[in-house]
């Protein structure tokens, strides 16, 4: 008789998943132990715009601050913002999508209308207005991003729910006497994990990007470092177009964002593949 292997067994054999996990783990570790690694970059020094060298592995910026230190402290913020934003949008988006897909009648209609309205609103200008009104702090940035990224998650969840609730095993579950909430949050949601998971990682990735754009536009928290803040400083000092070009200043934080996004996507896709019993073999 074939024995069932554990989740870990399949995960260790999933190349993308491992690459993603290692990448995400590195960023998380970097963010968590940042204070023990390097001092918080603040003030200014005389080492202006130094190219990468042994004493400054990633170079310095126009204020003479070490880019490596900025990137490490920035990982913290980016991680915090994207995680918070994902949690907020998952808490709103998943139940909203499930209910609007499963419950027919006025409740479903209202949620549906809300999703449509939010989807048609231009996100960035609204984020800018919200951030301007609520003030610039990390929590507000995370909240704003979370509040504006749930509709796409809700839409994806709803589509999956619509399909799944027509399946016969949902009817069979009703016949067994299971209550509606249980069917919805156990049987339907578990079957919808595929698209939902992928969408969550996408939101996570776009949260980092949104945070960067908000910081870039000066609506992030000016007192903390994030990858977006570094980019903004580079941009306002014309680092991107000036010559000789301090490429390390703008390239490194951009690369960090790309790596973060890609790693999270890979991890999310791998988890989804492994959770799906058919995707393992």
């Amino acid at each position, binding site marked *: *008789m074939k*024995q*069932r292997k554990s989740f870990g067994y399949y995960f260790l054999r999933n190349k993308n998943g491992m690459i993603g996990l290692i990448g995400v783990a590195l960023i998380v570790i970097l963010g968590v132990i940042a204070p023990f690694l390097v001092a918080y970059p603040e003030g200014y020094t005389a080492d202006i715009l130094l190219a990468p060298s042994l004493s400054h592995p990633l170079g310095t910026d126009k204020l003479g601050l070490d880019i490596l230190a900025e990137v490490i402290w920035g990982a913290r913020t980016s991680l915090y913002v994207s995680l918070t934003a994902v949690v907020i949008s998952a808490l709103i988006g998943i139940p909203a999508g499930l209910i609007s897909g499963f419950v*027919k009648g006025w409740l479903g209609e209202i949620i549906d209308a809300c999703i449509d309205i939010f989807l048609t609103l231009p996100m960035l200008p609204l984020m800018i207005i919200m951030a301007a009104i609520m003030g610039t702090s990390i929590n507000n940035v995370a909240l704003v991003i979370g509040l504006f990224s749930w509709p796409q998650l809700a839409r994806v969840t709803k589509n999956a729910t619509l399909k799944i609730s027509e*399946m*016969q*095993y949902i*009817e*069979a*579950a*009703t*016949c*067994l*006497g*299971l*209550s509606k909430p*249980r069917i919805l949050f156990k*049987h339907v949601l*578990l*079957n919808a*994990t595929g698209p939902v998971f992928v969408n969550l990682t996408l939101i996570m990735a776009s949260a980092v990007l949104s945070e960067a754009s908000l910081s870039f536009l000066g609506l992030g928290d000016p007192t903390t470092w994030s990858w977006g803040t570094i980019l903004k400083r580079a941009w306002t000092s014309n680092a991107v177009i000036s010559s000789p070009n301090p490429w390390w200043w703008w390239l490194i934080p951009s690369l960090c964002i790309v790596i973060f996004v890609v790693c999270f996507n890979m991890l999310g896709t791998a988890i989804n593949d492994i*959770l*799906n*019993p*058919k995707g393992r073999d």
Partner: protein
Amino acid sequence: MATIVEFKDYSMGFKDDDGVVFNLLDQVSFKVEEGRALGIVGESGCGKSMTSLSMMRLLPPSAVVQGGEILFQGRNLLQMSDAEMEKVRGKDISMIFQEPMTALNPVLTIGFQIGEALKIHEPSITKEEQQKRVVEVLAEVGISNPETRLNQYPHEFSGGMRQRVMIAMAVINHPILLIADEPTTALDVTIQAQILDIMKKLKGTGGLVVVTHNLGIVADICEEVVVMYAGRAVERGTLKAIFDHPLHPYTQGLMASIPTTKSEKKPLHTIPGTVPTVFDFKEGCRFADRCERCTEECRKKRPPLKKVGDDHLVQCFLPFEGEEIVHE
């Protein structure tokens, strides 16, 4: 012998977009006794599935109940609250579905799914007890190695095995009434016979309703038969009465359509035409358009229900020997 479920002049229909109700099931009456099996037969679209879904109170949203009663152990199912119905479903009445390939949740192990059916109706059960009961019921429906099979997912089972799992799920709470909606349609013939054997064994513990278009299955496991046509129970009675002396032209047509092993070189009998949809029913007998013995009267009036012999009822204008009109 206690009556388990009884339909009393039950009528239901469908609402169209304008809210006009079109009648489908028209004053259907029958009952299922303890330890016996009732077969509901008819072509596709005759209202067989609606009859079984009515017992579970799981009709589609556009369906409207128009009258009558469905008594389950003396309680009218139609008047129960949703909360009461949730307790009845899966515990007292459970159902086996037609498609074993789609009726199991693909992302949960079968052990979990069967266990859930048990746990939901017996919340105080311990983990070990639950596991034990699931293994027992799997063994009962003929799944070898139940302990290992528990942790497998539906896609690791063959069609016949899945149907066994479905049956295990339906019977784990020892339901008083088991409804099987086309239980073997999706299976190949050898598996069919095994599944029918399992169902025959289960019959002893309560009532069984088999919904099917396969008369062979009815002959194999049922004691009583209801023949449905376009929402009306055109003929009902004991298996022997119906199979030996089919009276209604529709029943006779069905019987004649069964292929036999006798090699007479003539084309198999067919009933011309198709079942009208619920929106196209006419006055009078609903079978009139396809009936070889249709008269003027048939097209004008609803045929009377006649009692012919002890346990044999038929709804037709044709004269039968020893008939006695029950109601017009």
